[in-house]
Each structure stands twice: as C-alpha cells, then as structure tokens.
C-alpha cells in the first residue's frame, strides 16, 4: 500500500495523451521546419565566437609551444589533463543513460537517450583534443599507433598513455556506432516527412533505406541490446584507464587504488550534471515538457546525488589512506592540498561537489527547474576544479620539499577551456538543428506500452 502511494507520487514518464503522427511530427518539426527562435541563434552565435577562440588558442599553442600554458616545473600536468579528464567524464553519463538504463529496462530513458548520446560523442571529441595538444608536438600523435614506419619502433604497450589511446579511440567509435544505429529509424522518419528535395536526399542517404520491416526490427533489437551490453563494461574501463594515467606514477596523491572507481563515480556525477544543464533549457525552448518530464529531471537528480555520495566517499578514503599509509609524503600532500597553494580551489571543490549537492535530497529542489539548473552548473564547475586539484596538487608537493613549486593559469589555459566548452555547445546546437533530439520511435513505443495513445 505504501509502495503504490510512493509510486503514485512520482511524476509520470510521459504526460498527457499522444498519437503517433503528433509525436513524430512535433519532434521532426523542430528539424524540418527550421524555424528556430531567435535566442537559439543568438546562443549559437555566442558559442561560435568561443569556437573561434578555441581555434585561435590551439593555433597559438601549436605555434609557440606548451610553455605558453601555465604549466611549469615541477607541475608539468595542467589544464590540458584536467580538461581531458573532465570532458571524458561528462561523456559517461550519456552511455550510462543509453546503454545501462536500456539493459535495466528503465522506460524513462527513451526521451533523453538521444541527446545524452550526442553529448557523449561531442564530449569525447573535445576530450580527445587535450592529450594530443598536451604532447607538445601534436603532429606526432600517431606514434601511439602500431604503424609500420621507418623508425622501426613500436608503441610502449606498458604505458598508460597507449592504453588511454586505445580506450578513448574505442569509446569514440563504439559511441558513434551505437548512436548512429539508434538514429537509423528516426532518420527514415525524417526522410518520409521531409518536404524539400535537399532534406529528402540528406536524410534519405543517411537512413540507408530503412523501412521498418519486422524482419529488420528483430535483428536490430538483438544487436542494439548487444551493443548496449558492450558499451557498459567499456564505459567503466575507459574512465578506469584514464585514472591509471595517474595511479601508475608514484607521485603522492596520484598513487592510489581508489582512483578507478572514484573516477568513474565522478564521471557519472559530472555527466548527469551536464545532462541536466542541456535538458532543462532544451525542454523549455522546444516546449517538450510533456515528453521530457519532471520525472526525468527528478531521476537524473537522484542519480547525481547517488554518484555524488560515492565521490564524497572517494574524497574521504583518499584522505584516510594518506593518513593510514603512514607515509610522510602522502600525509604532507594531503595537508598541503587543504592548506597549500591550491587550498582555495580544494575547499570550493568540496563546497560544490559535497555541499551544494546535498540540496538535491529535497524533492522541492529536484522539481524546481531554475534551482536544479543552478546546482547542475555548480557541480560541473566543482568537478572541473576537482580534476584540476588532483592534477596539480600531487606534483606540486612531491617527495623533496626543495623541489616543491606551483603552476599558474594563463589566458591560453582559459582560452582552450572556454573554447572547448563553446565548441561543445555549438555542436549540441547544430545537432538539435539537424537531427531529432528525442528518439521518436522509442517515445512512440513507450506511449503505446503505457497506454498514452489517444
């Protein structure tokens, strides 16, 4: 009895009654009518300016060299690495929503999985830039591949950098395949709804002649579920491998076995924060509040708090093990993190990721969109700071106090960071303009299953 009452209180996954032409028409209309509000293009323009900033900064970085970043001996890892970890983490929530929730048969994933997957792709694209830019001589990045060459050298298979390359490349390709496979039926729908020749050709070629045959659907479902089952261990492995970049060094503050699970939880926290950062304006701008409902927002906020608690546990256990190890360097590093040169950032990080996050326990906050949006943005910032603190505080307080030092941040660090954020959102805007941001066929199926067809 109590259980039904609790279920009854949760907002429904879909609101109101729908019919199939209405659902597909509304979602496809955003793409095909091409009449987007002026503020959409204004926001896109702002992001585009940041794209130019990114191009300029990258050109500058490649031309002058990594010395123009704030990195300095002994802290030679800086924003390039923290940006990388941050972006790759953001991508993980997309895979979790599209793959793990599919396997767990959570119906609420249907209306948000498409843009969450797009978010994954663009975040991975951004993430992939940074290790390459960090190389110093980015034009040699292909040396990480086992290609036949005149040097007759092989990649160093025992290096986490090479594992990273394998993990990120695999993740990007598998995410792209999974995303495109999910798009096929919707592309066919757009092809049939398109009025202009250009749109018919564009969507028609991409749809590959999908016609919704029952035989095709049967194979499609089996393979789609298998791809989801493959993406699930993959997503866990990717961020674990990213964390091994740190743990393989004996640097105090890097060398810890808690890192893989702690990084994966952090990835989910920042990823869900980014899902909310995109979903809240999206559902408002395109009036799809009955398809992306409060239930989605509520669930994403709950997942944020769940992963946020694991992250808080990670912080605590990091500090505990530094103390429990009995090693002077580990203990010093931990104390220096709290009171040293980066202590302001450390406390801001705790306030964002542990403090503010607790507001999500309140149902009133979870269902209040402006508040939820603000918390999501704060957590995004907090997670970036977390990565930065991890990256810089270890090397800055190494074994020998005579070798201690810090790094600064220059305009180039910020140019590349904000440039990448702008590029990410510009890609999201283009995606919303060109492809259906909500999975039409799954929402129709959901409407049919939940009896919400008029």
């Amino acid at each position, binding site marked *: 009895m109590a259980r039904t009452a609790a279920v009854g209180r949760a907002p429904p996954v879909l609101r109101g009654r729908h*019919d*199939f*032409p209405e*659902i*597909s028409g509304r979602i*496809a209309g955003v793409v095909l009518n091409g009449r987007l509000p002026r503020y959409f293009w204004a926001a896109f323009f702002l992001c585009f300016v940041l794209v130019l900033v990114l191009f300029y900064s990258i050109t500058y970085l490649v031309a002058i060299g990594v010395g123009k970043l704030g990195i300095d001996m002994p802290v030679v890892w800086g924003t390039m690495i923290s940006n990388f970890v941050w972006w790759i983490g953001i991508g993980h929530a997309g895979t979790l929503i599209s793959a793990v929730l599919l396997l767990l048969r959570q119906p609420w994933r249907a209306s948000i999985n498409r843009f969450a997957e797009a978010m994954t792709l663009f975040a991975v694209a951004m993430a992939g830039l940074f290790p390459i830019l960090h190389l110093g001589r980015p034009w040699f990045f292909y040396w990480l591949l*086992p290609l036949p060459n005149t040097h*007759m*050298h*092989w990649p160093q*298979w*025992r290096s986490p950098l*090479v*594992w990273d390359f*394998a*993990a990120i*490349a*695999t993740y990007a*390709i*598998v995410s792209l*395949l*999974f995303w*495109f*496979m999910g798009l096929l*039926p919707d592309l*066919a*729908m757009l*092809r*049939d*709804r398109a009025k202009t020749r250009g749109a018919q050709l564009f969507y*028609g*070629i991409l749809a*590959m*002649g999908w*016609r*919704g*045959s*029952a*035989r*095709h*659907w*049967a*194979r*499609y*479902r*089996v*393979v789609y579920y*298998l*791809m989801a089952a*493959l*993406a699930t*261990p993959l997503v866990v*492995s990717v961020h674990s*491998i990213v964390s091994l970049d740190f743990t393989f060094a004996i640097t105090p503050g890097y060398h810890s076995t808690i890192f893989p699970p702690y990084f994966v939880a952090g990835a989910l926290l920042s990823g869900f924060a980014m899902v909310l950062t995109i979903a809240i304006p999206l559902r408002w701008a395109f009036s799809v509040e009955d398809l992306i409902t409060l239930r989605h927002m509520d669930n994403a906020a709950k997942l944020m708090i769940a992963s946020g608690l694991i992250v808080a546990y990670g912080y605590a256990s990091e500090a505990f093990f530094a103390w429990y190890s009995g090693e002077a360097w580990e203990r010093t590093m931990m104390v220096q993190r709290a009171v040293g040169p980066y202590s302001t950032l450390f406390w801001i990080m705790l306030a964002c990721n542990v403090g503010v996050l607790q507001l999500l326990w309140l149902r009133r906050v979870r269902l209040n969109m402006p508040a939820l949006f603000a918390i999501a943005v704060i957590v995004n910032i907090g997670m970036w700071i977390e990565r930065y603190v991890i990256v810089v505080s270890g090397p800055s307080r190494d074994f020998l106090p005579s070798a201690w030092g810090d790094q600064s941040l220059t305009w180039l660090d910020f140019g590349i960071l904000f440039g990448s954020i702008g590029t990410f959102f510009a890609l999201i805007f283009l995606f919303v303009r060109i492809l259906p941001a909500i999975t*039409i*066929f*799954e929402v*129709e*199926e959901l409407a*049919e299953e939940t009896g919400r067809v008029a």
Partner: protein
Amino acid sequence: MSLYGLIAAFAEPDALVHAASAMRDKGYRRMDAFSPFEIRELEAILAIRPTRLPWAVLAGGIAGLVLTYALILYSVEIDYPLNVGGRPLHSWPPFVVIAFEAGILGAALAGFVGVLWANGLPRYHHPAFNAETFSYARGGKFYLLVETADPRFRKGVTRGQLTRLGAETVEEVEA
C-alpha cells in the same frame, strides 16, 4: 511492370498483429510487416527465425582480442625484444588492457556491420517504397505486405481478405 504484392495499411498496431496472424492462418507465408517501432508479436506470426548475429558479435570480439594480443606479443617477443633490467618480455597485465579494448571494438564493429549486412542495408530502393500509401512515418500507420510470390496469392481474393481484416487501404505494389 510486374506486380510485387499487395500492401495494406492499418491504423493500430493491434490491427496489424491481428491481420498478420489471420493471414498466416489462411496459409500465407511470404509476408512482411512495416511499423515505425518494433512490434514483438510479429516475430512469431511472421515466423522470423532468431538471428545468428550474436555469434558474429562474439566472433568479432574474439578476433579483435586475439589479433591485438598476438600483435603485441609479436612486437615484444620477436620483432623488438627489449630487456629492461631482466623484466619479463611477456608482461601480460598491461597487454590485457589493450586487448580488452580491441575486443570490444571488434565486437561492436561486427555487430554494426552485421546488422546492416543481414538486413541488406544500405538499400535505397525497395518495392515497398513504390506504394503511394506507404509512408514509413507520416501517418503513424502499420503495414502488411503480401507478396505475389506466395503460392496462395490471388490478387482479388487477397485484396478482399485484407479489406475484411480492417485494412484502411489496400494498394498494389509494383516491383
């Protein structure tokens, strides 16, 4: 222009399922159904065999894993053995990481290529597209196609049967 079959449009998924099973009871076998989303009941009615694609995915995964591991092993043992302080050349734990990623990649590629291959896609032309009433999405309709190749196919009779089963329209499809 020869006749490929008759395509009947239904307004509801249930109507399509009902019609498909009724036609099967009448002995029709060469049928296909089209819907904007998957209808699970059709699998049994149209006697769609379980796909063997999972084996392709498994094979792709094993191939990716084994080939990558073999490449690494070849490089460290045969092509460029490098003795660093007497450490073993075959230090498998790091190699497993790369081989695992390659295995996932191989499996996903096999699944993606396999499902397109098995479905005969990309295929930009199919007789079903010739039907004027056939629009995969616009009206949210559900279609049943009976091919002329079916031994029981008689144009007039089949058309009558489909109409009686509640089809909104029945159209002749040119091949």
